[in-house]
């Protein structure tokens, strides 16, 4: 599994370009997250791909060839923080609820919705942590779940910033 970070133009069609490229290189994407940066015109992607180092190099270099991709970097070998966010709707009745609450504490999850027969939990952390929680929740009955996919950032002074600080003229003024 390889993790890449990319800065792209925040406009229609760019996600399609990126995913289409991975398909062309026959690289399966495990997760891809995208969201705007503090500059609304630039989005940041975290791409986790089923490939080896060589495949990641090809993906990185091919991505950076795209006009709309400002920077692409394979960060797999760098000190890295990775996080995944999950919402899990789990069966919870009178009898199972107390037991559930204990587990939730251990995993530092939060209850964000309570219904007579179920709870929605929110948990963030590494993939392993979420997988671990999921495993212990399964006997209670997992009704629904959604995961955000991984986001990643290199540690400390190892900065990965968009190539150029946007000029003042590029920012939109409020009407």
């Amino acid at each position: 599994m390889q993790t890449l970070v990319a800065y792209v133009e925040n406009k229609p069609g760019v996600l399609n370009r990126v995913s289409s490229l991975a398909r062309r290189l026959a690289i399966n994407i495990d997760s891809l997250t995208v969201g705007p940066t503090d500059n609304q015109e630039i989005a940041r992607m975290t791409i986790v791909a089923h490939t080896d180092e060589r495949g990641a190099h090809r993906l990185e270099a091919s991505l950076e060839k795209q006009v709309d991709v400002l920077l692409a970097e394979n960060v797999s070998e760098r000190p890295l923080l990775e996080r995944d966010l999950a919402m899990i709707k789990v069966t919870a009745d009178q009898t199972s609820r107390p037991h559930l609450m204990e587990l939730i504490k251990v995993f530092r999850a939060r209850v964000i919705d309570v219904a007579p027969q179920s709870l929605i939990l929110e948990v963030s952390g590494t993939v392993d942590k979420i997988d671990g929680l999921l495993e212990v929740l399964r006997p209670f009955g997992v009704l629904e779940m959604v995961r955000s996919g991984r986001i990643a950032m290199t540690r400390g002074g190892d900065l990965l910033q968009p190539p150029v600080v946007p000029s003042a003229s590029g920012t939109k003024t409020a009407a």
Partner: protein
Amino acid sequence: MKLTGAEIVCETLTQLGTKHVFGYPGGAILPIYDALGKSKLHHILVRHEQGATHMADGYARASGGVGVAMATSGPGATNMVTGIATAMLDSSPVVCITGQVSSKLLGSDAFQEVDITGITMPITKHNVVVTRAEDVARTIREAFVIAQSGRPGPVLVDITKDAQQASCEYNFDAAAPKLPAKRQRPKYDKVEFDRAVEMLNSAKRPLILAGHGIMMSGAMKIFDQFVHSGNIPVAMTLLGIGAFPASDSLNLGMMGMHGEAWVNHAIQEADLLIAVGMRFDDRVTGDLKTYARDARKIHIEIDRSEINKNVKVDSALVGDAREILEALLPHVKHKEHADWLAHIRELKGDSAVRDIQGLPDNGHLYAAHVINDLWKETKGEAIVVTDVGQHQMWEAQYYHHNSPRTLVTSGGLGTMGFATPAAIGAKFAKPDADVWVVVGDGGFQMTMCELATIVQEKIKVNIAIINNGYLGMVRQWQEFFYDKRYVATPMIAPDFAALANAFGIRGERISSRGDVLPTIRAARESKESFLIDFRVEQEDSVYPMVPAGGSLHEMIRRPDSPLVETAAQEL
């Protein structure tokens, strides 16, 4: 100045230096055609939009500039797909402008609506939909920059009809390209550079692999100096042909699947390969496991994604070939490499006698004779445009190109039907050049409708059809690998000479060797376009041949025959 989007298209193209546009009108691009009529641009009406893209491609390759093709929405745009892919695979700077239905109809399956940017995403360097007249000028200027910069390639600009019809203020200078601020990587790594210098100067058996990138970067002169300062032999890729004169004694000729045996053996025995502007295509390397195992490798390449893609290299110099060669040159120590060069001469061995050129006239007409005579008669100075297949390989083997941009051929995609339209484009790029189409009977039939374009434009293009009544290269594979089961390769064709006449072009049919030169001469002397239907040996094959996926040094050689023995005795 207030102009419509359509007028802005023509104005911007004109100000960018475009003189010719190859295209075909239709509903969604009518506003642009109306503006074209009032502009200084010369529009060449093609007979099929595939032809328009190949013409723009041929124009770009022969001129070194950008070729422009135009088509309407829907089928007009989809017909361009093969031509766009051809340009993509051979890194040719082509700008395609397509009409699109009005922006409010987008996504509604309107008449002749197709998502052409979606379709062409993987086969363009970049593509974009324009829905506002205000964005037309800047987008076209950006398209030209993208098409030509770095590793060139095709760009498609899809302009909705309402964007063509709307008016806005036009100012060329104000519409300067505003491309995203990309990361600038260092030109090349110092460590890699130093390692390359060390390898260059310590190699005993160095060999240069010369590719298309040399021409793209205009590095011919510095490349020549580089080669001679190190006295290093050079093998050419198909698309590299012309980057280094065939007449130079250090030029070994083409490498790869149909490269001469000594070239491929030299690659396999080299201790250093210096690849310049080439991408280790599978047709060039054969089996990667056995490819140049004793050689360390230096890769000079502008496209970072090509590094270590097929062949793992010891030094990667990413950047413009000319700049890198200029930087390397002062560090190259002169060496004679006398033993190595003598060894390569030995490798040639009896290849020259086995060569068909040495064979006496036995009444049969071989394609090799035709190409060789064409080369002699044109003194190697013609622009030759080929398709893909046997005729293409024979051209590469027997037409010795000394100048860049004189061979225009579909290499990467291997597109049948490329030659005739691409030659039309090349003729517009180089109106004074002697332009020859060399094409098979199969490929010619794919785009022969463009003969009408030749006549309507009153241009002079000579056409040599290498007619063997088969889809020759496929037949050859069936002969070698499918036990001579010739399925769907025997092919009848119309009387090409009569067909040419029907279009208003002179045509001749030739089937004996003695008639080849006089007819080529007649074609060259004719003021009008001239088609020659060369009826060549039907089941002739291209030798040598490295079977697909085979090792480069294990070739199928020219078969022995009584003729070969006679020729050997005569020498």
